[in-house]
């Protein structure tokens, strides 16, 4: 078979794009490390078959391996890495890097569309500063959105979808990707020079409450105009600010004190039981941990309540994630969100994009467009927030 004189640096670049070590890549390709090293050192050129194998196993285009030079790092999606990765510095594994590239494709396509049809991207997001009073900023944002506490209390089903719809109604695109563990990342926020707000959440976050918290945490990054990937372990000013913002947004001070008083009886207590924390959490749609931290933050509990509860919880086993059967269109709608799907369909109907563009942006074949559109319309009817 014909050998192709590729630039060996491009082969090494493609491997690093996917976050693979030489050994991992060789294993994926089913070849000895030395053989792969030979190709990357330019000792010999790969055959067409070898190149196609590399493209398939690295999940990168065949044509990308034919480039005369690697792409520059500056052509990547830029975001600040706030992850702590258990305090050892964050890691970019192959799955996460590939997902980031997929996100880049989506954001690029949307930016392209925005240039052609700006009215589809209308949004009036305020800007906040990390030096502002976080509690005031969060509660002001609730008020600006017209998000009433009574709504929050009443929601009992599809709660994440309702919060997502609320954020999407602000003009934010919210995606949920099942990539990596929550140890790797929980959320990603992008609001760069293209001025389109994107939030991407880790769908492997099992608990709805935690996912809601992540959503608001990332929303805060958008309001701060700080592109970020985070695991929400509190470290540094920005992450701490976003965690506090999410807490005050989801548990406004006045209402939180009232509910805490109602749950605990006449006087606030030193010892909060799990049942009490759970009862408060259920009202605000947050986890017990978020409640524990917020109680301490508002001086309604000792500072070490959260630490104590974490120590106790280590003795219990975590509940299994309920793996109900999710329909195909439901899955797509969960992943892309109503805003993304609606914008693509409106652009298609307006003749700004064609079926192929829409297919690329939705990853759904044109013959299934109508069913996806029905699913989204159904969602917007059920828990749409002024979209």
């Amino acid at each position, binding site marked *: 078979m*014909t*050998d*192709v*004189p*590729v630039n060996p640096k491009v082969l090494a670049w493609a491997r690093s*794009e996917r976050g693979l070590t030489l050994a991992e890549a060789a294993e994926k390709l089913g070849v000895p490390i030395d053989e792969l090293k030979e190709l990357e050192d330019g000792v010999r050129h790969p055959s*067409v078959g070898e190149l196609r194998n590399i*493209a398939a196993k690295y*999940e*990168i*285009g*065949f*044509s*990308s*391996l*034919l*480039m*005369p*030079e690697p*792409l520059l790092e500056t*052509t*990547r999606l830029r975001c600040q890495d706030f992850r702590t990765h258990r305090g050892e510095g964050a890691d970019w594994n192959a799955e996460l890097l*590939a997902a980031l*590239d*997929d996100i*880049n*494709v989506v954001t*690029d396509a949307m*930016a*392209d*569309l925005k*240039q*052609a049809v700006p009215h589809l991207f209308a949004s009036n997001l305020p800007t906040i500063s990390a030096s502002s009073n976080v509690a005031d900023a969060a509660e002001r944002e609730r008020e600006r959105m017209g998000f009433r506490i009574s709504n929050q209390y009443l929601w009992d089903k599809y709660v994440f979808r309702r919060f997502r719809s609320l954020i999407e109604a602000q003009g934010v695109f919210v995606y949920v990707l099942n990539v990596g563990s929550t140890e790797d990342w929980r959320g990603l926020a992008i609001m760069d020079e293209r001025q389109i707000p994107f939030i991407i959440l880790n769908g492997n976050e099992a608990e709805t409450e935690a996912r809601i918290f992540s959503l608001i945490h990332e929303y805060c990054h958008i309001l701060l105009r700080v592109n970020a990937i985070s695991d929400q372990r509190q470290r540094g000013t920005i992450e701490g600010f976003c965690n506090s913002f999410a807490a005050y947004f989801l548990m406004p001070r006045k209402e939180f004190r009232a509910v805490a008083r109602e749950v605990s009886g006449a006087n606030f207590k030193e010892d909060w039981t799990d049942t009490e924390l759970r009862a408060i959490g259920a009202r605000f749609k947050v986890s017990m941990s978020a409640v524990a931290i917020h109680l301490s933050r508002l001086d309604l509990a000792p500072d070490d309540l959260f630490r104590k509860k974490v120590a106790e919880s280590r003795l219990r086993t975590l509940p299994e994630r309920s793996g109900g059967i999710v329909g195909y269109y439901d899955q797509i709608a969960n992943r892309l969100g109503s805003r993304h799907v609606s914008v693509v369909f409106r652009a298609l109907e307006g*003749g*700004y*994009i*064609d*079926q*192929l*563009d829409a*297919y690329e942006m939705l990853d759904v*074949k*044109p*013959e299934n467009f109508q069913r996806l559109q029905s699913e989204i319309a159904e969602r917007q009817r059920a828990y749409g927030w002024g979209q």
Partner: protein
Amino acid sequence: MDGGNRLYIVDASSWISVEGHPAQNLMLFHLGKMIEDGRIISPPEAWDEVENCPWVHAWLKQHRNLFVQRITDVEYFQLVGRVTHQFHVMAGARRRKERADQYVVGMAAYLNATSNPNRHVVVCEESHTKRPNRKIRTACQAFGVECVDMFTMLKKEFPDEAWPD
């Protein structure tokens, strides 16, 4: 003009533009004839994209062996690589799914360089109107390839036909 035949390399976007066009039947009639005459080709990557649009795919399937052309020359690969590098956003160089645009442009540029006096023209539609650095048309221009849309190509090839406005 170069004096040779004008041959066309058709992108998936143009194939799917035929569906629902006011002159759909007339277009298909002439396209079928041009394919039989060997005047229209597409790289396999464009064909793969057409597979996502069932109506056009069903019609084109009968002609597949006539118009889908695979080139395996090293020089062609290198040209496709250059297009990918220079227009990496258009080509989706970091993507998991391969796009066809770079192959369409690369094929036209390669054939123009190697099969004179024939002139290879890219046929593509583009829905997004801005950001020129991402477009096939701009990539064609950079590689010295002429580019038209499907309807314009047919009107030019069959000027006596009663095409709708």
